[in-house]
């Protein structure tokens, strides 16, 4: 029962955080000129009517016989729809309402993102993000799993064998994780793997050990690959029918639901390398904390008591010290989650994974076409919500692991 009260209390504390985050994005959005705010919400004006978002237009555009300048009725209507003519507090209230009801605007036709992904043109931002989110979530879950599997045992080991080779190796790993930019590491790994495995499998970016040339489950075309990672597999019958049934949207789960376990495995294989790169950077930060908290716990009285009782050293490390040092690990992981999520655009860009990070990476590009503010703000809101939700989970885990938190 105490646990539930604790969870509800944490959830209530989240309300000001969500309001605050959205207020910050609102301040940034309303710093844009009205024209750009309209573009961010409704997309670029059509090519035939470039004046659509101008407040004043020559009257001849509306009525061929008139002269002089008139108010643009289209602009007035659109601005009223976004509430641009209202005072700022009311605009803020409208923005909050729109954000919470997932009206995040539309993808522009002429932005870099719209040009690169034609299928997303004119679609609501939330729809496009919903297509892509499952891929990013799978990647996040896989890299989190790698982080937990590697960082905790390695951190504990380097605390137990302090200043021995294991500790030194962990230290070097941690430092190089800090010092190597993710894009450099990702590119090096990509090139290395493709060079090493390419001759056997054919050169391929998405996953070097898979011979086929397209990623599984391309969200943009809604198609499955022609050939899986494990060659000579029969082409699944439900793919031939033309309509793809995707009950969950998660490629791995979908394949498993259809009984195509090799396809599910294939999907996991393809995101293994990017997940490793993401995990490497986060492990670097985490490893030192795990080691230090383990060192601290190992010096506490209850560990000495356990030792003097004659509990085997293995059990002391695993059950007594290890369990107690987990609290710090979980907290630090929650704190670095925003950083962890921020690394996705690069990795998805390098490995050409079609996820939220990828769409963000192309929507910020402004060399050849304008940046897509609708997508930028949308994916920032999405990433922030993910971080907030992750923090709730961390808090609950923390309370579960440490009774002092929920009882104190």
């Amino acid at each position, binding site marked *: 029962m105490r646990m539930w009260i604790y969870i509800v209390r944490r959830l209530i*504390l989240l309300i*000001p*955080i969500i309001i*605050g*985050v959205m207020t*910050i*994005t609102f301040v*940034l*959005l309303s*710093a*844009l*000129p009205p*024209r*750009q705010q309209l573009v961010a919400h409704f997309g670029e004006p059509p090519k035939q009517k470039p004046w659509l978002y101008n407040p004043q237009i020559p009257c001849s555009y509306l009525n061929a016989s008139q002269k002089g300048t008139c108010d643009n009725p289209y602009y007035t209507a659109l601005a009223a729809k976004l509430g641009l003519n209202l005072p700022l507090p009311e605009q803020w209230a409208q923005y909050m309402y729109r954000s919470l009801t997932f009206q995040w605007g539309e993808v522009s036709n002429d932005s870099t993102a719209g040009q690169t992904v034609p299928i997303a043109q004119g679609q609501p931002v939330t729809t496009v993000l919903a297509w892509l989110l499952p891929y990013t979530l799978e990647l996040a879950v896989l890299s989190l799993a790698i982080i937990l599997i590697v960082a905790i045992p390695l951190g504990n080991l380097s605390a137990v064998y302090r200043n021995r080779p294991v500790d030194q190796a962990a*230290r070097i790993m941690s*430092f*190089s994780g*800090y*010092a*190597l*930019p*993710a*894009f*450099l590491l990702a*590119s*090096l790994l*990509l*090139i290395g793997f*493709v*060079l090493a495995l*390419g001759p056997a499998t054919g*050169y391929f*970016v998405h996953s070097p050990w898979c011979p086929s040339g397209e990623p599984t489950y391309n969200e943009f075309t809604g198609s499955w690959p022609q050939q899986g990672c494990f060659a000579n597999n029969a082409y699944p019958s439900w793919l031939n029918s033309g309509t793809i049934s995707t009950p969950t949207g998660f490629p791995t789960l979908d394949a498993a639901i259809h009984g195509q376990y090799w396809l599910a495995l294939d999907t996991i294989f393809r995101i293994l390398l990017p997940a490793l790169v993401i995990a490497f950077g986060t492990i670097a930060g985490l490893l030192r904390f795990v080691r230090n908290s383990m*060192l601290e716990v190992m*010096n506490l009285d209850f560990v000495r008591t356990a030792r003097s009782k004659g509990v085997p050293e293995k059990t002391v490390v695993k059950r007594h010290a290890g369990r107690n040092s987990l609290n710090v690990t979980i907290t630090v992981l929650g*704190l670095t989650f*925003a*950083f962890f*999520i*921020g690394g996705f*655009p*690069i990795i998805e*860009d*390098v490995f050409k994974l079609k996820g939220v990070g990828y769409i*963000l*990476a*192309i929507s*910020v*590009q*402004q*060399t050849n076409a304008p*940046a897509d*503010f609708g997508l*930028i703000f949308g*994916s*920032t809101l999405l*990433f*922030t919500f993910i*971080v907030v939700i992750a*923090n709730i989970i961390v808090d609950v885990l923390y309370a579960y692991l440490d009774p002092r938190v929920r009882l104190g």
Partner: protein
Amino acid sequence: MATDSSTISAPEPVRGRRPNPRLDQYKRTWYFLRRNTLAIFGLGVIFALVLVAIYASTTSIPWDGMPLCNSTNNQVVTFQELGLPSGTSWSVTMDGVTQTSTGVNISFSEPSGPTYLYTIGNVSGYSAAPSRGSIGVGGVPLQVSIRFTVAPGTAISGRLSPAAALVLPCTVCTYAAGTPSPGPNCYQTPKNNPSVIAPTVSLSPPGLGPLPMGALTLGPGTAYFYNLFNGLLRGTDYSLLLSVSIVSVGAMLGLIIGAISGYWGGVVDEAIMRLVDIFLSIPTILFVIIVIAVVTTTYQTVLGLSLLDTRVFLLIGGFMVVWWPFYARIVRSQVLVVREQKYVEAARASGASRSRIVLRHIIPNSMYPIFIQMSLDVGTIPLLTGFLVFLGFNIWPTPYFPEWGTISAIGTLNVVQAFLGACESGACAIPWWQLFFPGLALFLFAISVNFLSDGLRDALDPRLRR
């Protein structure tokens, strides 16, 4: 009043300032740091980099851009408008060709050699300066800044400085492969194609000569390159300055806010901690991207700064806004410990004001964790700017801006592009030096800083010293 001092001898009063009690702590820290080989290695590398930075700031290479060379004989002439509201259509006529754009730049590609005439098209309500002129094309790409001002005499407030000018011309000369270069700025011409000056991708590996670290081509598929060695040299002071300024401003803010939050407690503490939570939930990189994109879309420049200074200001500001919460948290937890100490109690008992206690007693004694975190973060900044450039997000007004993160991002992109393009067709020629040298510089910098901060932590924490 005379006192009898013969019976009771008072302790000799110390004259002048009392010796600083923290001096002993500094000495002790240095003693333990000195015995840590890795930390001393890090300190040495950082010291050397600072020397290089000081040297670089005295060289003649311009501050805001690298002298470029072009590997084909066609040159790009770019016209850049300043002062028009975004989305306004404007046009340039050059050599009989008219181009119209609503963007900032209009580019022409013209053969080198002759001098061309250009005219700026009329924009209603604005007057252009210069509105016409002539330009000699040869050697290097050119950039012309056209400044639009509101027509009836009222000048736009603020200083609008033109974008980087390109100065040093590249000498074109040919010589046999394997022989030394006949002069400075003279680059080897690839066999079979004498009209193209090396290095196109993969044609100028590093070696002794004009390009000791090879050349950095600007983005895959472009014909421009510059001397990688010069770029890295020039980038040293820039990268160091940017990292140190971002981190120190963020830390300063975090220190003050964290100290207030920890010492005042109660409602103030609660409010500040919620604010910290809000900022900690926004992904760092995305926030910086949005700040730069929004501000540069609305205004070309802010606060009367030049184009480059505006970007630097926004970069520092953006990072600072999302960075102080980390420091504030660290400082707060430290202050919660420090404020219970006897010396703070003593200060309070002797009637010191709150601000004096915070400034003179609490802040100086909660500084050390901040130093460690700062030294960790300094190494991260060039990585993050590289991250932005790698995404294709223009942070600098010129793509050839000498900054380590930018250089390594461009180099990595080139390598990946060459790899995907060439290796799939069988002929693998990877310009590895474009990735290796900038990566090495970044790695060396970040790892030295990390070694140093790890050494500092060990030297400062008595429990780890055993």
